[in-house]
């Protein structure tokens, strides 16, 4: 389960592609709510899956601060450092 920082972004992209069943291309600039059409519940469920993937805790109270996939990856990297 251990991942380094530069592995996080590709892994987040892969997880998002899987969660959205590869219907939309996911890039670092993809805007979660708008481009992936995630509602707040889907977004929270995605966070739960990413928490398990990276063995971190991501507070759902931080979600409003996150727009893009790159921002999400950066947040996970920050959480991993503790």
């Amino acid at each position, binding site marked *: 389960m251990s991942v380094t920082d530069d592995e996080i972004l590709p892994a987040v992209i892969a997880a998002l592609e899987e969660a959205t069943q590869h219907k939309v291309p996911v890039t670092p600039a993809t805007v979660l709510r708008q481009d992936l059409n995630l509602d707040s*519940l889907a977004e929270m*469920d995605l966070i*739960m899956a990413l928490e398990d993937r990276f*063995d971190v*805790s991501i*507070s*759902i*109270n931080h979600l409003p601060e996150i727009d893009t996939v790159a921002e999400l990856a950066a947040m996970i990297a920050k959480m991993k450092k*503790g």
Partner: protein
Amino acid sequence: MALFDKFAPLLKHYADVNAAGHNPFKVNIEQVLSPTEAMVNGRETLLVGTNNYLGLTFEPECIEAAIDALRREGTGTTGSRVANGSYEQHRRLEEELADFFGRKSAMVFSTGHHANLGLLSTLAGPHDHLVIDADSHASIYDGCKLSSAQVTRFKHNNPADLDKRLGRLASLPGEKIVVLEGIYSMLGDRAPLKEMVAICKRHGAYVVVDEAHSLGVLGRHGRGLCEEAEVEDQVDFIVGTFSKSLGAVGGFIVSNHPEFDVLRVACRTYKFTASLPPSVMASVRAALGVMRKKPELRLRLKANSKLLYDGMVALGFQVGPEVSPVVAVHLPNLEMGVRFWNMLLESGVYVNLAPPQATPNGVTLLRCSVCAAHTKEQLVRILDVFQAIGTELGLLQAPARRVAAQ
């Protein structure tokens, strides 16, 4: 984008729901006749979607107590207790609640929603962690949002998942506060409380249990799931509401924590809203008394719940995972749900339609809530109506089996 444009998707959703006839979210109750009957669209209608679990809304003792309080203490308190003071009714109600739960302190709020909002947002500071079930009630989510705390969700009623997530938080600073519910309001399933509370304690976490749907319903004295699961001494805060089994409105928290009372000056949903009117508190106190005096209400509710649940299963409907006063009938999609709901109303049966947005895993539910005051004849009628409509809509095998309600 104009101010109200953001609501377009929501309006479209309501328009779709409207298209089938009556709007399930704008039902006009022309006159309530009893805990189980009302006039709707000029028709006498059987109420099976009220959360009025013990049927106390027309209890003569509660009505008389409310009238007496109205005459003696007037229609309202016209302000918060911090500004306008506490009435005799506030003090007595809190004493009686604390006594009923066997706790040191009780604190009354204007609604259960306010109790959750106030407790969670006040108790948890910026470095603390609120750990909540993924299927928590909106008021728990709102409390988390209003707090400055870190918020972690765990998989619904899943002790192993709770354990894993608490384990991850172990190395982080701050207190951990786990929020559970007795009976979950949509599917009627209960938390595996004994196991979950043991996990919380192992991780040194505080435990909050919301007994909104289990007060008066579970436990030998009606104290809820904490009583039934024998974990009361390990649960730090119990939240509840007067709006369901006690037939009125208002919310509360009880606790043994020695410093609990500081919440009265810290909690904004306590300080900055008007307190309950004396008449409401008087009726709640009377309802608490009736609940204590008449355990048969709880037994009747249990028998009624089993009759409706088993009856739905026998008909071939998919329902929630266990017998409970919330009998959640699953339908294949929202469109079918809206049609079924309309046909029920046309047949004089009122239930709650729960659309995918409001339910776990996005299912459509016809959510029935059973009342101790439902007669056997009423329950059989509900099952007959469900059978007829289910058959007409092709959801049940025809000819369906007769209801085994004898």
